[in-house]
């Protein structure tokens, strides 16, 4: 197991190099001269030349890349062109906001997805199964920015409905924007987690159905094990194996989804930072943020693989 972890960590190195090259080339792939863009359309020639010199843009590309990576490894991702502050501190606090959003959403998605999936699988073709899977289909097909807007409308601002409609009319239980308090966190987490919950529910259902048909489940029943324990211990532990992979992939997807969700709810996280920086053509910040998100994604994948390995004893052959 230890050997495996080491091997997996070593295997992430090429991925990180690849990502950094991509991020680095972004600066050079955008049309126009980055120095000119930074300096502004009407800046004098000397100023552009100055920036070019300061950023080392006159050096050959490999040299530029190496110095970029060298700085990045020391935590120096350059300076924001908008605020002038260094990118690392610009990302700083927002990093945790996005991580919180993604982690909470994952937890909610896993929780709801697993329960719904298991209920569906153990009551195949029942009313509960059909309705849950229908809801999951809705959850899957709903764009999350739209869901976010709807949630804001219904649960934060309140809508004008006849007074006999319970609950919904004229409520403002939750806050439509910001991050920190419980009232602020709920709606973005639901928005972001719904799609994943739906995917996890469907995955859990099919995986459980597969496992429940296996011989060892029959063995457990023949031993006199209670049905509840058959389902939640014997079956679920095996059914989780493919689900873990999906959860990992979903987490990556959530980081992407955070960009939209943060914009809808005006959450000041990395997603919003990327969008704002793109609008302002603040390349160093965009680069830095993407690099951090990629790193996060790689780490999550690593954790998923190790968990998978832990659950699936059969592949642990060394």
């Amino acid at each position, binding site marked *: 197991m230890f*050997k495996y972890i*080491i*091997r997996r960590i*070593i295997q992430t190195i090429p991925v990180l190099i690849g990502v950094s090259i991509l991020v680095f080339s972004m600066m050079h792939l955008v049309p126009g001269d980055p120095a000119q863009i930074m300096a502004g359309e009407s800046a004098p020639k000397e100023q552009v030349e100055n920036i070019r010199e300061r950023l080392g843009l006159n050096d050959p590309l490999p040299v530029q890349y190496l110095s970029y990576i060298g700085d990045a490894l020391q935590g120096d991702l350059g300076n924001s062109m908008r605020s002038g502050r260094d990118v690392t501190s610009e990302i700083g606090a927002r990093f945790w906001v996005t991580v919180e959003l993604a982690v909470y959403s994952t937890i909610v998605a896993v929780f709801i997805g697993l329960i719904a999936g298991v209920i569906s699988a153990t009551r195949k073709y029942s009313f509960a199964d059909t309705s849950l899977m229908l809801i999951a289909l809705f959850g899957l097909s709903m764009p999350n920015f739209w869901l976010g807007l709807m949630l804001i409308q219904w649960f934060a601002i309140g809508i004008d409905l006849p007074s006999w409609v319970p609950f919904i009319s004229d409520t403002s239980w939750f806050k439509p924007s910001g991050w920190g308090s419980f009232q602020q966190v709920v709606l973005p987490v639901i928005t972001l987690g719904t799609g994943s919950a739906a995917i996890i529910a469907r995955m859990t259902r099919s995986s459980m159905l597969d496992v429940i048909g296996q011989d060892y489940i029959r063995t457990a029943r023949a031993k006199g094990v209670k049905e509840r324990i058959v389902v939640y211990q014997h079956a679920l532990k095996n059914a989780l194996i493919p689900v873990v992979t999906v959860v990992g992939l979903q987490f990556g997807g959530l980081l992407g989804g955070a960009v939209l969700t943060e914009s809808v709810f005006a959450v000041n996280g990395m997603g919003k930072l990327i969008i704002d920086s793109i609008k302002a053509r603040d390349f160093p910040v965009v680069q830095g943020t993407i690099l951090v998100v990629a790193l996060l994604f790689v780490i999550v994948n690593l954790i998923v693989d190790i968990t998978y390995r832990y659950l699936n004893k059969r592949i642990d052959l*060394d």
Partner: protein
Amino acid sequence: MQKQKELLKVTDLKQYFPIKGGILGRTVNHVKAVDGVSFTIYEGETLSIVGESGCGKSTTGRAILRLDEPTSGEVEFDGNNLLDYSKKEMNKVRKDMQIIFQDPYASINPRHTVRQILTEAMEIQNSVPKQERNDRVLELMQTVGLGPHQADRLPHEFSGGQRQRIGIARALSVDPQLIIADEAVSALDVSIQAQVINLLKKLQRDFKLTYLFISHDLGVVRHISDRIIVMYLGKIVEIADKKSLFNNQMHPYTKALLSAIPSTNTEVKRERIILKGDVPSPIDPPAGCRFHTRCPFATDLCRTEVPELRNGDGMTDGHMAACHYMEEIKNGEHQPTVV
């Protein structure tokens, strides 16, 4: 035994499958599935390979047809070494050598009708002129005991026994000389199995076919074979004509294997040799004789020296076994070393 024409000659065939591992996924070891196997198949005979799972019998069959690329050795067919052939040449030779698998359903396209399945093989080999193919299909179906009205049915509409008949018909469609039957009747119920065995024997008489029959069922093997090879852990332990093998088996493994088969003959109480333990892993097979870990007669010699396949005293021509002590065990001079 009179001199017959050699159809296929296998010399020192080895099939090692690499095991990947380590941090960089290098090949760290090999599964030595077949480790230096030599034998000859004569024209018109049925040669069987028996042995338990993991002994390398199926791998040998696949290696001969180069379905897996063998590691080393020679496979001479009609005087040419198949392992030197290019892919294209090999495909041509496959016309003469067909294989039937245990599960015919897994090896035929479930969306093709019987007619398509049978025509396809003829098309690939271009062995039958286009206008005659349809007649040939019906003829083949009749040969294997299927009705012409079934030609346009899909495989799932047939029972297991009938599907195996389709598999046999497909093999026959290109007029092969050699058919490798890899556990071809193992998955069938006994009453159906008997029908298919009789069919295979009839086809052999009618078309002068040569069979390499791979099976774990010694009853079936006894009924169908002329000569038999017993394999254990990638090596041949004994090879003999049917009579010698069943009446005068020399290798302790062959003896144990035969005695382990449950018999419906309750009148005769037979002495049963129950082998201890499991077959060792083919990754690091035991040194010396590979059977020594389970052999009741094993000595230090067996643990260190690999026994040669040889024809010993009191054995018929062509009967060979690989045991250091086979004569001594036979005449009672060498007694079991473990009780």
